[in-house]
């Protein structure tokens, strides 16, 4: 049952991706060369709805968080390695398989590279555990915890800030 729900969720997501033009190599490279912000607009509006929705769910006790731990060095270095790969591949881990569905067969090699990357990481994990993961390790923390403010309030302020940023982008003609 849970597997079926996962599949259905993925199908809906893939449908949205295709309709919003998120599966195109040109859109991802457009974001990274700052010439077409479609992917950023998609992500920002997702976070605006998501931040208010998730903070509502958790505040009402309808669902808990599942925070990813903060280890600043690994978060940053991993993020940069990801960014380098993103610029070459032109898709992300969800949109590479999605692009295959739209007919972009180069996504297949992106997925294969990803599987080899995952296996390589699994076998090099002990090295990073001894090194990077120890630097700036603060565990599972969120902004409301750090700021000592109610999560829903922080969520609404954050969503408002992103909305203002979007309004700014539109006004500047991006």
């Amino acid at each position, binding site marked *: 049952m849970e597997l079926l729900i996962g599949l259905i969720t993925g199908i809906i997501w893939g*449908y949205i991706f295709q309709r919003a033009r998120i599966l195109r*190599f040109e859109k991802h490279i457009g974001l990274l*060369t700052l010439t077409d912000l479609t992917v950023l607009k998609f992500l920002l509006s997702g*976070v605006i709805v998501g931040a208010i929705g998730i903070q509502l769910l958790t505040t009402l006790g309808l*669902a808990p968080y599942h925070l990813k731990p903060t280890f600043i060095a690994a978060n940053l270095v991993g993020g*940069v390695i*990801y960014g380098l790969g993103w610029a070459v591949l032109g898709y992300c881990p969800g949109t590479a398989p999605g692009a295959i569905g739209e007919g972009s067969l180069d996504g297949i090699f992106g997925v294969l590279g990803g599987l080899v990357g995952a296996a390589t990481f699994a076998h090099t994990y002990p090295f990073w555990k001894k090194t990077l993961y120890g630097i700036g390790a603060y565990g599972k923390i969120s902004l409301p915890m750090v700021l000592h403010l109610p999560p829903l309030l922080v969520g609404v302020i954050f969503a408002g800030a992103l909305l203002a940023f979007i309004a700014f982008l539109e006004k500047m003609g991006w």
Partner: protein
Amino acid sequence: MRNGWSPYLGGALTGLLLVASVLVTYQLFGHPRYLGTSTAYVRVSGMIEKAVSPQRVAENEYYRKEGTGIDWKVMLVLGVPLGALLAALRNGEFRLRWVPERWTRCFGNSPLVRAVGAFIGGFLIIYGARLAGGCPSGHGLSGMSQLAVSAFFVVTGFFAGGIPLALILYGRERR
């Protein structure tokens, strides 16, 4: 925009999908499923490696931590191309191609060169995402929606790595 949705509509629907997924999976199964895609690669690579060498996978700390085999996350990632195929077919946008147009203008139209580039890029995004703890969906969408501190560092890294390299590779060409 002709024949397509505004990215704001697509993003807002994705935000709703995230909230619905977390609510439904927690209420039905007792654990919230936040949208994220890079863990699925570990679960599948572990499954493949297990077929070759079960001992190696059983002794691997990371595979033990993340688990291997088909689960909700793998099904999620399998569903994405199906949904994309459905949407592309319904709207007459399904088109087979080996090399993206923008890539062709910079690196030529050889499918082999593109395949090697895509493979290297795919390797780096998953290796980097696993080191960072997640990708633009796990950290970007789900992490930022939870206001996780880690998400802000990781997303900064994504752009700090991606923007300079993309500008070097493709230049600032407006279309």
